[in-house]
């Protein structure tokens, strides 16, 4: 029963962390794109279009998938603790 509780609440907690981290990561990416456009001023590309294009790239990129580590690292940590303590 305690195990079920740990899994359910752990999953809920990590989901909150996951959502926060992905919002943060997206916000940082957007800011970087805006700064990049500001500095390079590419010919014929509007600011919004430039940011939109960059965000599309981010949505399919590796960085976004790395956020899944939020779930994987605690799982590995718990496994390691169980192995070393018992």
């Amino acid at each position: 029963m305690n195990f079920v509780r740990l899994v359910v609440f752990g999953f809920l907690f990590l989901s909150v962390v996951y959502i926060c981290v992905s919002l943060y990561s997206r916000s940082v990416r957007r800011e970087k794109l805006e700064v990049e456009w500001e500095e390079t001023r590419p010919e014929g590309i509007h600011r919004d279009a430039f940011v939109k294009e960059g965000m599309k790239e981010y949505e399919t990129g590796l960085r976004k998938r790395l956020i899944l580590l939020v779930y994987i690292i605690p799982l590995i940590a718990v496994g390691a603790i169980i192995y070393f303590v018992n």
Partner: protein
Amino acid sequence: MRNFRRAVRITVFLILALWLHYVMPQRDIARVTSTEVVRTDFSALNRIFFAQADTGATDNPSRDLRFINTERKATYLFGLIRGGNQTMVYRNEDTGWIYPPYFKFDSADLQAEAGAAISTAEPYDWVVITHYGWRIRWLSIYPNAVSIRPAPSEEFRPIPWGNIIIYIALIAGALFLRAMWRQFRERTLDPLADRAEDRMDHVQADFAERRGRVRRWLDSWKSK
């Protein structure tokens, strides 16, 4: 107000520090003198300082507790200074799947190891006992032993790698949280506040203009 804020901050910091001191692993150099099992009834006061029944068993209001009686090297100032010998009693309970997250299920095996490590005749066999928790006599609470391994010598001083890693992770997490909050404030809250302020300005300007129009119309009735 500033003093109040400071007091709140200090209180929160103290509670956090005490809690960390309670749950973080510590290591003692000790020699086991005996092991025993004591039937224990908890009170409302000290119940939170004990874990629950063994992971596979059901929890009752009173149960048998495993104890490890030892003589250990006293330590002061977070283990930086070593003192003489002192008695110490550890309890030996499963922490199970919940708090604190040691995931310890092997208290029966640990009790057997402690029994095998009993050393009452010189030269003594010293062991390293990893534990968390406090010994407070007037509350009848005991630190929970997590593992026992032989110590190379009486003077052995283990380096707390686990604690170092956990504290680095905690500090990194806190800094990350701060960065997240700052980003949120800069990109979401501040623009929202700006927009609200902007709208307020518009409304006020509108109002002033309308009042001006009414005033002008009224003025047109005045005799010149």
